[in-house]
């Protein structure tokens, strides 16, 4: 289920670097499943400067509020407005329609601080 071309953070966010160098961010299927029904997402504003591993927004399930962390540093270039109106997309399609923001990377070398697919799978197994 978890796509293997992506990079992953310990906070269960994924990053996909597009051919144009822009990074797309979201949360993993594990994170979405753990949260339960997502009913509210607060995303950073367009143009906001994100810092790797720092808070970039909030996500709420029926019962709980959680922080969203950015797995990279950079500038928000686009927000997925459809998850504002339809937060259930995060559960239904965490790696695709449920993406959160597109970010112009400040430092592509930061991607090395993230996990590969197999490293992330190992983390999940260690936590289960």
């Amino acid at each position, binding site marked *: 289920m978890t796509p293997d071309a992506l990079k992953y953070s310990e906070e269960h966010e994924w990053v996909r670097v597009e051919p144009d160098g822009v990074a797309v961010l979201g949360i993993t299927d594990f994170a979405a499943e753990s949260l*339960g*029904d997502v009913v509210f997402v607060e995303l950073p504003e367009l143009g906001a400067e994100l810092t790797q591993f720092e808070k970039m927004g909030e996500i709420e399930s*029926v*019962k709980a*509020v959680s922080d969203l962390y950015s797995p990279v540093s950079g500038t928000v270039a686009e927000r997925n407005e459809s998850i504002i109106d339809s937060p259930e997309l995060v559960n239904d399609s965490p790696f695709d329609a449920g993406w959160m923001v597109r970010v112009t990377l400040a430092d592509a070398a930061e991607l090395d601080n993230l996990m590969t697919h197999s490293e992330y799978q190992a983390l999940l197994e260690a936590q289960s």
Partner: protein
Amino acid sequence: MPTSDNLRQTALYDTHIALGGRIVPFGGWAMPIQYDSILREARAVRSNVGLFDVSHMGRLKIQGAGAAPLLSRVLSLGAKSMRPGRARYCLICNQDGGIIDDCIVYRNSEEDFLLVPNAANTVAVIDWLARWNTKPNTVSINNITTETAMIAIQGPQSIPTLNEITTDDISSVLPFNTIRTRIDGIDAMLAHTGYTGEDGFEVILPAEDAAGVWRLLVEQGAASCGLGARDVLRLEAGLLLHGNDMSVDTNPYEAGLDRFVRPDRRGYVAREALLRARDNGVQKKLVGFFMTGRGIPRHGYAIHHYGRNIGEVTSGGPSPLLDSNIGLGYVPADYSAVGTHIQIDIRGRLIDAEVTSLPFYSRRKK
């Protein structure tokens, strides 16, 4: 999933695990908060039928010639006038009028009552009964919580679903009435009560038979539902949760529960305090509100009115039925009118909301 050792398990615990229930601590018990999806479970109850394990709630048998007088002393409504087969929602208040618990009392026969308090308050209720039991040789109080189970079957299809497996037709049992019948051959008490705002029954049966009946109801098409869906549904129906929306620090008039209180009865332990509260009016009131701005109100968030902190949210969350975010909270009586503009402090941001009438949702009665 590991749970702490000191949590109690209901007779349905293994069934919840087998059905994929996610277990959380609640009122001292290990209970399923959800199976698959809280929202799907809530929708199943509104559109079809759902099952809830409510075995964690207390079940106290109160029997003997002194049972009705004892209950009349401690309950907010008299018990002596109840007809056998009837159930009543009522409050247990202390001598200051504070709410120790809310519960349902059932009269099975002249000298045989069942009291169902909340899980976390069962011990406090037993202690309170014992304190006012001035003629203990005429009353026996037996805690049958462990040897029995309690399953709530709720939703528009609850009655047809139950009728498939009960010996007697339950269609004619009126709300807040009970029937003793057999489910799949098992002797059970069925009460036409619930905590979801939908039609439904609550079934009390021997603990050892609970798992089989649950499976049978699932086979009949009922959805297994957890505490998460139960909380969504009861909030939509404007039903209060003790510990959140009322406590020993609130009286029934503040909580808007006036119609469940008859204070002017001789010997009622909360009589003086509740008569005073009734006649003097209240300073604070529980209100319902819906968010007009973007945000979800939650327990403990502050309520503001033009920059001034005036109260606190006691329950809140998303309403899938109303497609809106709703809450309950206490405000000064002056701010309790329907239409009053308030703001909720959602983690440092003041988000607009509006006081509305309760309940948020009321099903159309047939």
